[in-house]
């Protein structure tokens, strides 16, 4: 720590044409629409709030048990349970109207038309600042990850969503692929303004007492510190493969983890599973990142992006 270094750190970051006051976002499905966290977090200090996945019609989600703790992580098979875009507008967006934070709606669908339908419905809602298209959910039978694991469908969904909006369009990638850079190039080429990754890794756990799977749906998505090295590697690969900004996530628990993702090439980062462990994680990481920069004489947090020395 250098003597007398007291400068303030500029925490703002640019994601395409979105200027965020902080690089710290919340990961979809781990923060609902923010309301449940309002007792723990100053939502207005977040760079952005990424909502739970929203679909055209209400989705019931999967049977329980829907989660299982695994070493340094957890499996989930929530299955994108949500009340549909109409209820989302009436309840969640109405509540968010009173909160000054960029709102990025996570969009899910079984078909290209469903993704586009959600965006079309939201275009008239002033409270929406951008979209994150989830083509990487491992917990639904059709759509979801099926779109995100091959270049042609990934490009198709992106192109269709692009045609439906001029708002910032983020596409969220699956780690359950052989070559993530190839998918990243396909969605960037189809008009994505930014890419976020990683969604959960497909996994499984078994109860040896009963010989049964620990998730009712048998398989689910792995998240938390267990996936961080994989996520970091993929963020690094994608940041090299495309020109659009990258939002990194996967097992971020503290500011050091966040700094790693930025050094690997992320312009912003998302806090997911850590919100469950410590609901104040997003604030801790924001403060910690500023301190991380201050201690190193870095004036803008954005200078960390891609600063990896190799």
């Amino acid at each position, binding site marked *: 720590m250098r003597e007398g270094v007291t400068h303030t750190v500029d925490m703002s970051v640019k994601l395409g044409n979105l200027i965020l006051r902080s690089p710290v976002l919340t990961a979809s499905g781990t923060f609902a629409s923010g309301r449940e966290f309002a007792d723990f977090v100053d939502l207005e200090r977040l760079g952005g709030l990424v909502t739970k996945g929203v679909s055209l019609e209400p989705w019931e*989600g999967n*049977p329980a048990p829907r989660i299982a703790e695994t070493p340094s992580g957890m499996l989930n098979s929530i299955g994108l349970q949500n009340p549909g875009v109409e209820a989302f507008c009436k309840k969640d967006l109405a509540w968010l109207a009173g909160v000054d934070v960029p709102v990025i709606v996570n969009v899910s669908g079984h078909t290209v038309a469903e993704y586009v339908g959600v965006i079309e419905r939201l275009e008239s809602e002033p409270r929406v600042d951008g979209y994150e298209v989830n083509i990487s959910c491992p917990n639904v039978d059709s759509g979801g990850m099926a779109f995100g694991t091959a270049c042609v469908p990934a490009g198709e969904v992106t192109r269709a969503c692009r045609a439906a909006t001029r708002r910032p369009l983020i596409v969220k990638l699956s780690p359950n692929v052989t070559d993530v850079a190839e998918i990243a190039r396909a969605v960037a080429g189809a008009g994505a303004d930014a890419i976020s990754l990683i969604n959960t890794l497909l996994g499984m756990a078994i109860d040896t007492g009963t010989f049964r799977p620990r998730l009712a749906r048998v398989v689910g998505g792995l998240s938390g510190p267990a996936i961080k090295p994989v996520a970091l590697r993929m963020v690094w690969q994608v940041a090299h493969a495309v020109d659009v900004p990258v939002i990194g996530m996967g097992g971020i628990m503290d500011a050091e983890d966040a700094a790693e993702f930025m050094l690997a090439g992320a312009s912003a980062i998302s806090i997911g599973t850590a919100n*469950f462990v410590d609901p104040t994680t997003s604030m801790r990481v924001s403060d910690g990142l500023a301190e991380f920069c201050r201690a190193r004489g870095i004036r803008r947090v954005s200078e960390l992006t891609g600063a990896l020395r190799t």
Partner: protein
Amino acid sequence: MGGCACSQPGVPPALENVEVVANDRVASGVGLVVLHAPRTAATVRPGQFVHLRISRESAALLRRPFSVHRVRGERIEILYQVLGTGTRLLAERGAGEEMDLIGPLGHGWEIPPGITHALLVAGGLGAAPLGMLAEELAARGVAVTVALGAPTEERLIARDLFETVARRFETATDDGSCGVEGFVTGVCESLLADEALDLVYTCGPEQMQRIVAAQAAEAGVSCQVSLERLMACGIGACLSCVVRTNEGQKRACVDGPVFDAATLLWDRSEIL
């Protein structure tokens, strides 16, 4: 907060640093941990729970939910059964050690105005969330009858508390070492026939709660149950703890853990 349109506004939950005051074994595989937790102690209501971070090691990542059994001044008491990684670590915590919790959480027991006599039916560790309730009912002048069940006499949890506050106290053990030999549901059935009851409160294995709820319904007495679900966030955000009801899917952590048994769609709900 939490967007639940419940009749118990209560105080919002908070993150509280707590210290272990004592941690003792009370029966085989069962411990009682006393925590110095002034905020929670001052605000928790019967049937609510806390989400405890037992270890900071990331290997056992998630918090664990536990009912508040009793409050004494600035202290809360938790009865816990040693089952897996988390509860084994909890059993190792000694006086002076620190942890943190989120609490108070959830929608606890409803005490409708005007009730005069309530039956509490507990199976095993199900006695945990009924302790505070028994004390609260007695303090409000409601007559309390308790039916407590366990495999053996040694495992009759919180017997002293219930014996102190209950007007009538019955037990059932699998081996007949104390009270009726057999299940507590048998005791429940005869109490429902014997006594003029306004309400049944129950907690224990879900199969037991289903039987108790059915017996209460048969007797025309309303019944509240406290359900256990696997929980990640504990505050209503992750949807891991769903319960199927006739009003759609509810979250056990904020809409429950206590539910009116008449609203539950048992057939399709998970039994842990």
